[in-house]
């Protein structure tokens, strides 16, 4: 996509590009493997495609946000629709508005969900639907955002809230949890956002969340599950940001008793190294008098 402005380093893996209907040569060379990327729309007739897909290990998800020209939208959309799951039904009305939907939906294929966000023009007649969808887009759906930034799979995240994987996945597709669960979702989202900000990416966040904080301690994700938010926050404050003031703990040292002979020898070495006696003829006696060397007996 010539003219695209890269806002976040990332890459559209070659294996995914054809699936999205995009030639691989269009991705900026500066993108880094394993990252999602965001492309800023440059004309009103553009569409942002937000796609999730499984990582190679199948353990976490990655986000891809791709912009395609309006007149090219049919090609990627057809490709995407082939992989749509039930969660993406919300976007179907929009897709169907300009695509022949018949025969395009294959719910048996999992692992890829699609949202289409439409700008005002040339799809003005769908703007209301687009606005509604946008408000529930990645940023607007807390569970989706949580899944994106935490790097954790849905099962693990569902555990945090004491709900089933299916329920959590419904949350990521826009279903709204209510009451205490919604409150908890927002609390945890905020805590993990802080961690991701410090660590820089979802994979590092996932690694940290699943690593015990001390040899026999809990994992951060278990602290969240047990509602030990203060402790979680405390540990997270030691991540990433280099300390600027506080020095690292110094090794504890016991006081060493120095024998008088050793002390005399050390002072002698210092004097010979600094040339103090030679360079300051007026004050050697004064300097010597300032040093009190204990007697060998005492």
């Amino acid at each position: 996509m010539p003219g695209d402005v890269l806002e976040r380093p990332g890459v559209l893996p070659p294996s995914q590009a054809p699936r999205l209907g995009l030639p691989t040569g269009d991705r900026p060379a500066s993108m880094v493997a394993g990252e999602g990327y965001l492309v800023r729309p440059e004309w009103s007739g553009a569409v942002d495609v937000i796609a999730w897909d499984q990582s190679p290990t199948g353990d976490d998800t990655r986000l891809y946000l791709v912009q395609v020209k309006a007149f090219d939208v049919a090609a990627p959309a057809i490709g995407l629709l082939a992989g749509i799951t039930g969660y993406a039904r919300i976007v179907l009305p929009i897709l169907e508005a300009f695509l022949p939907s018949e025969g395009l939906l294959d719910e048996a294929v999992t692992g890829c969900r699609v949202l289409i966000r439409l700008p005002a023009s040339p799809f003005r007649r769908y703007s209301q639907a687009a606005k509604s969808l946008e408000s529930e887009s990645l940023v607007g759906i807390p569970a989706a955002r949580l899944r994106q930034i935490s790097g954790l799979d849905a099962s693990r995240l569902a555990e945090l809230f004491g709900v089933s994987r299916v329920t959590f996945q419904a949350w990521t597709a826009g279903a709204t949890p209510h009451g205490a669960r919604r409150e908890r979702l927002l609390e945890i989202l905020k805590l993990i956002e802080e961690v991701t900000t410090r660590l820089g990416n979802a994979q590092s966040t996932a690694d940290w969340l699943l690593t015990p904080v001390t040899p026999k301690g809990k994992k951060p994700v278990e602290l969240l599950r047990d509602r030990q938010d203060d402790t979680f926050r405390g540990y997270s404050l030691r991540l990433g940001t280099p300390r600027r003031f506080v020095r690292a703990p110094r090794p504890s040292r016991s006081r060493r008793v120095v024998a008088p002979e050793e002390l005399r020898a050390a002072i002698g070495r210092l004097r010979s190294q600094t040339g103090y006696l030679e360079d300051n003829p007026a004050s050697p006696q004064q300097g010597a008098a300032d040093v009190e060397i204990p007697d060998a007996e005492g």
Partner: protein
Amino acid sequence: MEPRGLGEALIQQGWDQGSLLTARPAQQSWLARRPVSSDDTTEASGSGPELWETHQQVLAPGEHLVVSSQACDIARDPTKEPFVELLRASWTDDKQLINEAGRNSIRRFLLRRRTGDDGVPEGLIADATSRIYVEKSSLLGLTPEPGLDPSDQFVAHKFRRWLADRYNRPAVPDNLVAGVQKHVVEAVRKLKATDDLTELLTGVDQILFFADVAQEPYEVELILMRNERQDVSLELDEEGAARIAGWLSEVIREGAMAKVVHWEILDSRTISLYDYVTAYPLPLDYYTLRGEPDAIAETPFVREI
């Protein structure tokens, strides 16, 4: 007895920094300007000796006095240094007060603990804001009691530091009082005695902090100093420290002027000299902010036991 020998005799008798005296009934004195009539011409100069008078307050029956003078000052020639300085001290079973004094309060110091007749833990607390001077010769006939646990050298060392720290620690600037200390003090005050955070905070001897005030929110780094007193049973571990740091960071963040970006748990053996000397102490029991009345814990300090 020769005057010079008096000071040395006091030392031989056991008087030292931290010695306890029960002076009953004793009085604390201070100077105050007496009210003057409008036609009193000496008022304008402010130097008329008749403007000042001595006020006195009788110490409560349960109060003690703890020696704050150093041994060398006690021993010094009474013609040159005639008084021994003491602070008011009192036993209390107020858990919050004991906890505050046991941490880095600039004004109060937990001298020692005991268990009362009814099984309730009590603390002997010295008040740095209230100083009394006693003539050295008056102490000669009295037997000092130990104000500090003689087996806990850390407390004796900390007491000496605390006495000096009242004047030599850097005052926390107003912007940091408003952005950091105020919110922490108010949050600590809201903690209940039964709150497990209250218990956890007994494992902290001092909280020190640095702040980058180039722009708001200020970036704050905290140092939690482990409490090394022998009479503190709780040994703060990493998880406990993380909980305190996480809680403090949220309290500070809610103030909207500062945010915690890092913390460490250290003790007197592991802190660097640079950190210890340059960090601001974070008193948890009071703050003073220009334009606001002093926010001091309202718990009455002096109680009858």
